[in-house]
């Protein structure tokens, strides 16, 4: 029942977002984990995540080199084709070099659509950077207020924070069921649950998650106890065909620290303090993405999640041309090796479910199983 809803939401992400607009909601497309969605939500709008796609690039390549990467190219392509024209606006943050310059291109070529840049620094250390980070967030509030035509109300923000924090707690609970042995929640359902949250309002997502968790807790453990528990890492995993492929190869995801997974939802906002300040603090101190410094909290999160899921190996799903993650991989691989955890890097351009990937995954699973036995 819930799985059917996830299927419907994820079968056509653009359609799911469009549906929100049809319902009269002002929908804002967000492209990054440093866009403070709570502010957008509190202004009565619906933040959704632009996840890109594996589609052929027909228009964007007139403006972007191929090495800008599929995520940047496909989102810009969707924008140029008018597939995102129903959005009330688009918000990017100063993340990778490609995404930052995408903002410039968006303004140049889709000028009729409201767009904003959360111009935060890359280095999340030091007083000067903290001041700039705070001022970038406050400037974003001003931009939103201009768009909405009204001020950000503290009470509304508090309600939004509560909605988002509940969402984070529910997703953490889902992650713990995923990490249970035997698993109480299948990897495929977990991924669907996480991804669907990017495409609907968090209020509705919370309802679905509550139902899912209730059903999963009451149900017997999911099948597949003989599967090899693995940890998944990387910036983005949206290819739903990957986890079934992993299962066919004898493995399953038992934990993750994906950019579109736990790194996105892990940290909560302190509900006790000034709401604007606390939202800013949350984004300043959240588990940093690969395009932010420092690196160590990201590594510690990866290690903790991997341990929590009792994973026997790690697969890094890295988008081609996602340089920041490409630099991290050899470092994390070596650190994992020192702990006796083998790892595999899969280079992708959104699509993972290829026969080439199958061969590599199968070999990796066999090797790790062989070591474990």
């Amino acid at each position: 029942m819930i799985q059917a809803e996830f299927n419907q939401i994820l079968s056509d992400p653009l359609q799911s977002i469009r549906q929100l607009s049809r319902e009269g909601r002002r929908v804002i497309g967000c492209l990054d984990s440093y866009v403070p969605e709570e502010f957008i939500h509190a202004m009565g709008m619906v933040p959704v995540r632009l996840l890109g796609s594996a589609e052929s690039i027909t228009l964007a390549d007139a403006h972007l080199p191929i090495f800008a990467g599929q995520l940047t190219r496909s989102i810009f392509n969707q924008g140029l084709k008018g597939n995102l024209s129903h959005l009330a606006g688009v918000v990017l943050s100063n993340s990778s070099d490609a995404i930052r310059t995408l903002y410039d291109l968006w303004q140049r070529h889709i000028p009729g659509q409201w767009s904003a840049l959360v111009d935060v620094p890359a280095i999340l250390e030091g007083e000067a950077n903290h001041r700039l980070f705070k001022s970038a967030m406050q400037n974003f509030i001003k931009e939103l207020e201009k768009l909405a035509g009204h001020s950000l109300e503290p009470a509304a923000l508090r309600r939004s924070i509560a909605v988002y924090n509940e969402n984070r707690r529910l997703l953490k609970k889902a992650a713990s069921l995923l990490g249970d042995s035997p698993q109480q929640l299948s990897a495929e359902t977990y991924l669907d649950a996480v991804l669907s949250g990017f495409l609907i309002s968090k209020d509705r997502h919370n309802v679905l998650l509550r139902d899912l968790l209730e059903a999963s807790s009451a149900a017997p453990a999911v099948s597949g106890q003989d599967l090899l528990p693995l940890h998944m890492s990387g910036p983005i995993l949206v290819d739903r065909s990957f986890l079934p492929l992993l299962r066919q190869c004898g493995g399953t995801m038992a934990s993750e620290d994906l950019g579109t997974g736990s790194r996105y939802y892990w940290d909560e906002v302190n509900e006790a303090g000034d709401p604007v300040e606390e939202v800013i603090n949350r984004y300043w101190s959240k588990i940093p993405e690969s395009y932010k410094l420092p690196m160590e909290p990201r590594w510690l999160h990866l290690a903790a999640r991997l341990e929590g899921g009792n994973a026997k190996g790690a697969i890094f799903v890295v988008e081609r041309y996602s340089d920041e993650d490409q630099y991290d991989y050899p470092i994390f691989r070596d650190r994992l090796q020192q702990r006796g955890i083998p790892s595999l890097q899969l280079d992708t351009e959104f699509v993972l479910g290829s026969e080439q990937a199958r061969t590599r995954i199968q070999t990796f699973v066999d090797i790790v199983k062989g070591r474990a036995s």
Partner: protein
Amino acid sequence: MSTQSKKGRSLNSSYQAGTILKEYWERAKRHQAEGRPVAWVSGNVPIELFWAMGIFPVYPENYSAVLASAQRAQEFCEEAEQKGFSYDLCSYSRINLGIILGKGINDPGLPFGGLPRPDILVTTRIPCLIQVKWWEAVREFFHCPMFVVDATMVDLPIREDQRQHYLGQMRELIPYMEKSVGVRFREDDFLQALKLSDEAAALWLELLDVRAAVPSPVGSREMCGNVFPLVSMLGSPTPIPFFRNLLDEAKECVKEKKGAVENEKIRLGWDNIPMWFNLKFFSDVEDHNVIFTYETYLRYVWGGRMDLRDPWTAFADKHLDVWLNYSINQRIRTLLSDIPKFKLDGFVFHQNHSCKRFAMGQKDAAVAIREKLGVPSLFINSDMADPRAFSEAQCRIQTDTFIEMLEAKKS
């Protein structure tokens, strides 16, 4: 394209460039041997601070360019790739990581006897985020202190909050360096370094301006060989006599109407870092009476003049006002202003596989200069250091066709 042999340098002073480079690397080693601190730094760090504080700033990216020029980049790139660093990553970084993870920085087979070990790593996001990731990987190996200077991209004029952000970081960097490597900051030394830096920059920029003359006194190949002191030695006295000699000679050539190309017919501009393994590309076209006489890389990447009546503001602005930190609109505005000034007939954009930040926006720039100025462009897909990304035959055909088209357009 003909294969006639190339002439020597247009400016005799250019021959000093090799000596300056060699002395720089020897001096770095000597500095460390004397027990003084060495920093590994990257393009667009606040270089004057290092010279003022007695910390020798070593540029691994220059070292990578040197290896590329010596046709030795591939072996180190492949070494890094074998260790897990993707082919798609910046080739400067792959060369450097290939050295570190291969035979090491003291390998006697390396130019200038290898690289001195860093006591501190300092880098900046200003040219790109990749530089920061590269330094993270380097730190994993050397376990030394690291500081990163951040910046958000600018549209000129620079905003006050961007300036204050930069200066705020300087107030953090200075005590960090003092504490990490045991040096002291003295404002007088710093102001003297700024003065030297500005004097060198003034000479360099005037030299670039002189190249707007028809015929141009010196082409890109030679100028790429002369840029190193601008990258790494601003704040020390070394670049000043070198740049002054170059400028004096160039002015003399202009006065005598002596061009680098005997019968200059076509003038070109270049965007992005050159192909260090193939600087010959710039001089090959000279057989067609074509000269490259303008480069964004030489003019805007390393910073410009400073108004020293307000030294800290000028210092911040100089380091923020660089091409790689420009928004796309700012880059386009700059090209639209410079291309007529340099009387360029065409423009070549290097789609540098290793430098995304440089390559982003190039297609929009090409459209803008065609529509607004009627100046056509050529795109070359290659890399600044890794020769495997370059197809000589394809490049030659494209370039020949482009030049023929420009000749037809002019006739």
